[in-house]
């Protein structure tokens, strides 16, 4: 009997199809269930000039730290807890080294919805009257409703363009080898929309189990992602670190260490050598040492 495809790949194999100049969407929200292991895999490539789309946080920050980002489409960039502002994003913005397509959070969703539905745009009120259009130059247009309002006047709305992605990177808590996957936390974020808006659909998960075990381990409504939305699935235990996922909290001490290190070139050099010079296993081992040192200092 013919077998369903096994989509398991290493993290490095999963991102091998991403090329310089591509547009990538990153799942999760702020510093929550971010595809950090996949981002770290991207840091090991020589890809540059990426356009990054999403509800962004330190995932964007790390890509900026490695000089890989040309442009970002975002509603916000947040670490969600102290010190809140991502230092690499702040540095890139204040030095003017990335192009910003800043927008209302709802516009990000609308743009992904348009792309997922293969529509050119989605009408939305959010953004009208604000500085958002100034971030976009000629790229953002308005659209007049073809339907008159009740009072006979015509409504003009923003025409949020489809955020078509060359690749989407998302991290879920549990998956099977075919790319079915579930979240075990409280919020799905927009990971399904990212996948449906992308040509290359790249999933990582903390654990990969049999389909039967996957389905038995979660409420069926948590099966956010099915296999027709996914091209590759990579096992990455603790793969959202230092952001949180369904199975573990945010590593606040490490996030503060990340943010503090970014403030100083020497400190960042040490950070990058310690955590970002090897593969994912090296990273997780270095994080374990960091955590152990923290414990010893507190004791």
């Amino acid at each position, binding site marked *: 009997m013919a077998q369903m495809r096994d989509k398991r790949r290493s993290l490095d194999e999963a991102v091998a199809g991403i090329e310089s100049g591509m547009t990538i969407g990153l799942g999760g*929200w702020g510093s929550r269930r971010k595809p950090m292991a996949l981002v770290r895999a991207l840091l090991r490539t020589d890809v540059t000039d990426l356009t990054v789309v999403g*509800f962004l946080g330190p995932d964007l920050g790390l890509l900026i730290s490695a000089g890989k980002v040309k442009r970002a489409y*975002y*509603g*916000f*960039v*947040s670490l969600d807890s102290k010190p*809140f*502002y991502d230092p690499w*994003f*702040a540095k890139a*913005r*204040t*030095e*003017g080294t990335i192009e*910003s397509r*800043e*927008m*209302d*959070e*709802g*516009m990000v*969703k609308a743009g992904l919805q348009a792309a997922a539905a293969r529509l050119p745009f989605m009408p*939305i*009120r*959010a*953004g*009208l*009257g*604000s*500085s*958002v259009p*100034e*971030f976009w130059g000629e790229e953002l247009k308005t659209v007049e409703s073809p339907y008159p*309002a009740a*009072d006979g*006047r*015509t*409504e*003009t*709305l923003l025409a949020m363009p489809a955020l078509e992605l060359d690749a989407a990177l998302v991290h879920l808590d549990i998956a099977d080898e075919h790319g079915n996957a579930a979240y075990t936390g*409280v*919020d*799905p*974020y*927009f990971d399904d929309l990212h996948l449906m808006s992308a040509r290359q659909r790249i999933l990582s998960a903390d654990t990969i189990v049999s389909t039967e075990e996957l389905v038995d381990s979660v409420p069926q409504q948590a099966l956010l992602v099915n296999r027709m939305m996914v091209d590759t699935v990579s096992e990455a235990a603790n793969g959202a670190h230092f952001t949180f996922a369904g199975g573990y909290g945010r590593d606040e001490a490490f996030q503060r260490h990340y943010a503090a290190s970014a403030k100083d070139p020497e400190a960042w050099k040490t950070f990058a050598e310690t955590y970002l010079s090897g593969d994912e296993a090296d990273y997780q081992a270095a994080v374990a040492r960091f955590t152990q040192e923290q414990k010893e200092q507190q004791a």
Partner: protein
Amino acid sequence: MTDNDVTRAEYCAVACAEMFSGAGEIMASPMATLPSIGARLARLTSEPDLLITDGNALILADTPALGRPGKVEGWLPFSKVFDVVASGRRHVVMGANQLDKYGNQNISAFGPLDKPTRQMFGVRGGPGNAINHATSYWVGKHSARVFSEQVDVVCGVGYDKADPDNPAYRFLNNYRVVSNLGVFDYSGPGRTMHALSLHPGVTAEQVRENTSFEIDGLDAAGPTREPSAEELRLIREVIDPKSLRDREVAQ
């Protein structure tokens, strides 16, 4: 209990609660401690139908103390929050790094758009909040820097930005501003900031010194309403027993 016992933070809590008066069965989205106390106080007094969340994806069935878990009555992940925003059944209380006399708000960055001098979060949900439903602001430290003549990035949309010929602006509702000095709305000339009340102990001169534009009705503004004994009990014993309010507003 005598009048003198009431702290500035407690006046702010009552002023924040009153922002939700008459709101009915909508989602309250307070983004800081004092508005969170206000939403809970409103729910425990005049607005029992108000929906409050745990700050993440869960709607709370009861009204727990700040920071405490509570029984859950519903689920509202971010994607559904955006749907609620567009539907209008929400009143958000945001902070502001800059806020001008028309209610233009900035939480994005200071300086030019393409190369700011200081970068904060980005516009977040400000543009969508302001143009879709009731939007109020809470400022814990009223200063001329926050209450600025102009804002560098328009996130929340001020009344001067509304296009009267475009019905898409019909839901714009910059409802109220509460600061550590007073309570304001936008009923001044040309829909500019108007003083509704100043907290006891605050002078018009003090507000003037800490605001970069003229506030309508400042000299005529009376004192902010005093909390009732029951409101004080709810604030102190039920909603904020750890006095988190005092960290946001100095006495």
